[in-house]
């Protein structure tokens, strides 16, 4: 049977009418990107600041107090509690009252003058041998990000403490940070968020769309008509391409106005990358809809895809840091390829065609998925 544009148009019109009546879904189309962007952009921050910590000050001198002030001036930690003994401090860490405790020993001033970092140049070797750390950090190491932040304090300069000129060290390497010199996490997160939100909404909408027809009994009527499976599939996913485009503009627009996420690439490149990914996600939703028996099942399968898309795609953790098997899984997910594409386009102004592996992969995924969905759909008739 020939593919009829009229029948596809009939399905598209019907979908749009139904969508316009379903106010909740319509609201979610706008609210999901809006709320999630605000949430994630504010919440996800790998530069940890203001970690609540305690202090055990055995020395109780003005020097120890100045030391506390210098450390707290870094902004990484905030002293919230003070304890009498190390034991009490450990208890406070156990009960999650503070994440770490700074223990200042009695002889802090002697330790300080022997310390190489205080700015007298290299001390004589006799003193070097006797030099010891000034104070000790006791850290709840279970959260690696927090532990890492406090570990970064290990070599903090203490020049202000003694009002001496800095002990200038020439760094081994010069580092130039491209694309995100201020090291703000939002710059990396907002483009990635496009992938996560599109994965969620696109797969969810389409996977539910066909299952709903089955649940409500409409499918029994549709299969007696001349409507071909491929026409139904195309008609079903077509309206969601626009919805996807609306969501992308919300996320990138707000990212630009609210969070100063630079937008370096061309709109055409962005449109190409986004369209490829929307199609891949919609087709994935279609495949799910041919497997799921009801809307609950389709929802569960959407989450099954969504979680690895958030955790393995490079949205939260760098792809390079994952073990090989996880990288294989990540390669299979459309979100991984799209995150590479959109970060390339938005942040580095790369043309999609230059990242042809990711582009081709999305195209192949879409075609293959459409084939699988159409074949599987035919089977469900009997």
């Amino acid at each position, binding site marked *: 049977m020939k593919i009829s544009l009229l029948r596809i*148009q009939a399905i598209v019109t019907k979908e749009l009418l139904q969508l316009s009546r379903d106010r909740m879904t319509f609201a979610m189309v706008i609210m999901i990107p809006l709320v999630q962007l605000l949430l994630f952009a504010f919440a996800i921050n790998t530069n940890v600041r203001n970690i609540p910590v305690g202090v055990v000050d055995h020395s109780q001198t003005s020097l120890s107090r100045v030391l506390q002030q210098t450390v707290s001036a870094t902004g990484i930690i905030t002293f919230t509690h003070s304890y009498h003994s190390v034991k009490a401090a450990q208890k406070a860490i156990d009960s999650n009252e503070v994440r770490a405790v700074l223990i200042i020993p009695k002889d802090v001033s002697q330790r300080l003058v022997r310390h190489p970092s205080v700015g007298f140049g290299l001390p004589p070797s006799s003193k070097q041998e006797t030099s010891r750390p000034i104070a000790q950090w006791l850290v709840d190491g279970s959260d690696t990000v927090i532990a890492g932040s406090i570990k970064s304090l290990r070599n903090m300069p203490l020049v202000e403490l003694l009002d001496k000129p800095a002990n200038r060290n020439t760094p081994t390497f010069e580092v130039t940070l491209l694309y995100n010199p201020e090291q703000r996490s939002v710059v990396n997160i907002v483009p990635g968020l496009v992938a996560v939100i599109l994965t969620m909404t696109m797969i969810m909408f389409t996977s539910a769309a066909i299952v709903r027809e089955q649940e409500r009994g409409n499918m029994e009527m549709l299969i007696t008509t001349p409507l071909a499976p491929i026409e139904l599939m195309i008609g079903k996913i077509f309206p969601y391409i626009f919805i996807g485009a609306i969501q992308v503009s919300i996320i990138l627009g707000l990212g630009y106005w609210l969070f100063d996420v630079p937008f370096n690439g061309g709109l055409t490149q962005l449109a190409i990358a986004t369209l490829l990914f929307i199609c891949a996600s919609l087709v994935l939703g279609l495949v799910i809809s041919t497997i799921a028996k009801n809307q609950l099942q389709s929802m569960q399968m959407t989450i099954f895809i969504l979680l690895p898309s958030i955790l393995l795609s490079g949205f939260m953790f760098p792809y390079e840091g994952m073990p090989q098997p996880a990288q294989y899984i990540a390669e299979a997910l459309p979100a991984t390829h799209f995150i590479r594409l959109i970060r390339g386009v938005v942040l580095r102004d790369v043309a999609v065609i230059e990242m042809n592996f990711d582009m081709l992969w999305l195209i192949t995924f879409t075609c293959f998925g459409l084939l699988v969905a159409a074949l599987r759909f035919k089977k469900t008739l009997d």
Partner: protein
Amino acid sequence: MILTTRAAANNTTYHRDLAINAKKLCRNFGQLAAISNLDLTVEKQTIYGFLGPNGSGKTTAIRLLTGLLKPTSGQINVLGCHLPQEANKLRLQIGYMTQKFSLYDDLTVKENLQFISKIYGLTANEQKSRLSELLSTHQLSQQSQQLADSMSGGQKQRLALAAAVIHKPKLLFLDEPTSAVDPQNRREFWEQLFDLCDQGTTILVSTHYMDEAERCHKLAILENGVKRADDTPQALMNNMAAQVVEIAASDLRYIKDKLIQLPLVISAAQLGTHLRVLVNKAERDPVGLLQRQSCIRPTDQLAIVRPSLEDVFVSCTGQGGAR
């Protein structure tokens, strides 16, 4: 074989022509035989009924005849199309009204009909005239802007029928069309069906209502996927393999329990103040047989009455059919 049936369907014309011709039709679902050895001939421009209890294979039979299900074995020829190979060709010529309301609840009457007409490829002009025609014949003009969800059972059913005939099918399948509507709506619905039939449509309808079955030109009684009887309702009643005796007595429940144990009694059912007893035709004098029973008192009144379609149904199916 295939060629000859198709040739027969094409050569013969006029109302003797067959809309449906199925031979030795079988369909199994795993171990279960949903339809076994069904022979079926439906003449054009008639209303043909499938009468049977729930699970008797009515819906499966309709799905086989519409090409939605593939038969396990047997031959089907519908409107000259050989099924299941030519199912796609048949789609444009048949209409199917499902058991459950299967249009869109969140679309209006008009939007539903517009959708279906586009699916059947009606042009914009055809669509306009056909829609207003359908809305008036099915008394839906008032509701055309109403959401299908908010309509009554009768209105929904009229909408479903309008949608099923939008492309003027030659053959219309109705699967228990009136199970959710009141008797008044059922009457009007059947008037519509006779109008359609008069205009040349062949209709195949499944039902478990006796009064509905009685309206059909011809009837097949199905049980457990097997055709038990097949004729006009009148002929079925005349040729029934049992006689009906009505008993008017005081202790009907007790009499029923006693009589049902007799080998020649097929069934006994109470209808108000009477007991309706079906006696096998092998018994020449059913009244005499019953009167000889100890549970019947001399004062009780016994009379042979005209059989109803329900009697035919009972004598063909269940225990009666097995005996």
